[in-house]
């Protein structure tokens, strides 16, 4: 191949080898709010894990302090209506929130990704059926779906997660379906088919990796939405059942005593707000980092 070997091009245009992921990471690191959020969330996870083994008091121990007593050296965040330590309950509540938030998104991914991929790639009947079901679910109010499911299944933590997934799977499915619809028309998908790739390889080897950015962003935004929904359900009394604490039920309990013991509402509310904010900032950061249009 003398003729073509002479044309050997020895250098690619970009001098360093940088994958799209390392590019994204480089951009994310420059986003201060996203970085602070990531640090906060990491700490939260660590605290929640530590709380499995060790809390200042047992979260269910009654009367460790005077009921309604405010913050003190022994009880940093005060005590609740039964004299239980608010800090200990808050830490255990963090576990519940994280399990609900992350757990629902794992299930949402497990449901939404394959269904979205299949609907988007095969189009036709599969897509029509999926789109119809999605629209039906969008048509029924979230709260109604969750309440009916919890009444039928009973209010355990697992069932709460299932109930939230039932109200949240559509966004992810629709996103994956849309991404797949767009990606399947791209030339490199056609090129893969032309080179003899089987459908499964195309779906999971080409389409999914290219849709991963938006999927990650969507899942990140899904976590706080699920946490908030759980808090709301618990606030209404159909969520996590006593004595297990959840930030929502703690706030609900505290509401009755907001005049005499505002710390009972403030502590879980602030924890909830900070966590929601952190997830949203992180999601924003990820979206900017993973969006190729923001590349300069």
């Amino acid at each position, binding site marked *: 191949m003398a003729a073509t070997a002479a044309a050997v091009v020895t250098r690619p245009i970009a001098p360093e080898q940088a994958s799209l992921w390392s590019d994204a990471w480089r951009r994310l690191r420059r986003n201060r709010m996203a970085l602070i959020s990531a640090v906060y969330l990491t700490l939260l996870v660590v605290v929640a894990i530590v709380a499995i083994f060790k809390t200042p008091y047992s979260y269910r121990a009654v009367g460790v302090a005077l009921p309604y007593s405010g913050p003190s050296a022994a009880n940093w965040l005060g005590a609740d209506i039964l004299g239980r330590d608010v800090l200990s309950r808050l830490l255990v509540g963090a576990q519940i929130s994280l399990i609900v938030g992350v757990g629902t998104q794992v299930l949402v991914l497990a449901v939404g990704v394959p269904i979205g991929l299949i609907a988007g790639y095969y189009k036709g009947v599969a897509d029509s059926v999926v789109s119809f079901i999605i629209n039906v679910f969008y048509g029924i109010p979230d709260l109604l779906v969750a309440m009916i499911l919890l009444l039928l299944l009973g209010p355990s933590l697992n069932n709460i997660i299932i109930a939230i997934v039932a109200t949240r799977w559509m966004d992810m499915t629709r996103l994956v379906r849309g991404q797949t619809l767009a990606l399947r028309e791209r030339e*490199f998908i056609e090129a893969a088919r032309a080179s003899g790739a089987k459908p499964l390889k195309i779906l999971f080897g080409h389409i999914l990796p290219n849709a991963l950015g938006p999927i990650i962003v969507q899942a990140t935004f899904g976590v706080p939405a699920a946490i908030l929904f759980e808090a709301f359900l618990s606030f209404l009394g159909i969520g996590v059942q006593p004595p297990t604490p959840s930030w929502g039920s703690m706030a609900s309990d505290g509401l009755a005593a907001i005049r005499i013991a505002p710390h009972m509402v403030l502590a879980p509310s602030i924890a909830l707000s900070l966590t929601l904010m952190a997830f949203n900032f992180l999601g924003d950061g990820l979206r900017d980092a993973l969006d190729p249009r923001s590349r300069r």
Partner: protein
Amino acid sequence: MAEAAVKGTPAPAPSGAKSLVRVENVVKHFPAGLGTHVHAVDGVSFDIREGETLGLVGESGCGKSTLARLVTQLIPVTSGKVFFGDVELTKLRGEKLRQYRRQLQMIFQDPFASLDPRMTVGDIIAEPLDNFRIVRGRKRNQRVQELLKIVGLNPNFNNRYPHEFSGGQRQRIGIARALALNPKLVVCDEAISALDVSIQAQIVNLLEDLQREFRLTYLFIAHDLSVVRHISDRVMVMYLGKIVEIADSVETYSSPKHPYTKALLSAIPVPDPKVQRGRRLVELTGEIPSPINPPSGCRFHTRCPIARLPTPCAETEPPLEEKRRDHLAACHFSSDV
């Protein structure tokens, strides 16, 4: 064969008249809503001879890219048959058809869209090998490096990502992928249209070298007749879903037998001011009609400078027939062109 002799080139001599691909009366309609259809390809028949380069030209919307995907069976035909050798591809489905993909490879138009941005160059080139489980491990890597060298790239590029390369280099990667399975036919769908002029020449020369070295047969699709004429042994011209002319590439220019071919030739500017200023443009009236509702009779009659209306041009469809030896055209008045 006649055309190879006329051309006076060292291009590979097509062996006999043996056809590698035969397309028989192929039709492809796409639904366009409200019960209407886009008549993208509307009853075309031709063959691709072993070892030749068959050029396919036409303007946007003439159906040439659809035809490429029908020949490679990336999309199913509405009706008609595509034969590869003696095998009727249009009868095959699923795994059986997939096995034939080894023989039929494709190079795509857009070097920025046809490579998966999340894969390394090595994995992109090896994908066809992986799909058919041909080589593994160290051998796979060797084959990738060998292919990179064949297309004139540094063999150590296999761990890099497509976005690190320029358009011409990416097109070389696409060519390496197409060659990985030692195919018989390579369909080049506007493979050089997106490249700069100086890079186009590199790729055209590369394709010519590869054809000679690996005895490839090309279906070379482009909208630029000068490039198609340059690389092809025979040229096929499409207009609105129909083939209007198939001829040896020299004859296409010296004695076109269809007024559309003539108009197309006259429209391409020659990079020589003395020649270009003396050329006369065959002005086509009107616009390309919609492929949803193509004109009756000869589809070109609405814009044809020599049409006799209404009879016969608006009423009878001219058949694609031999006007001279090995020179087919679909025109009632081909002697007036």
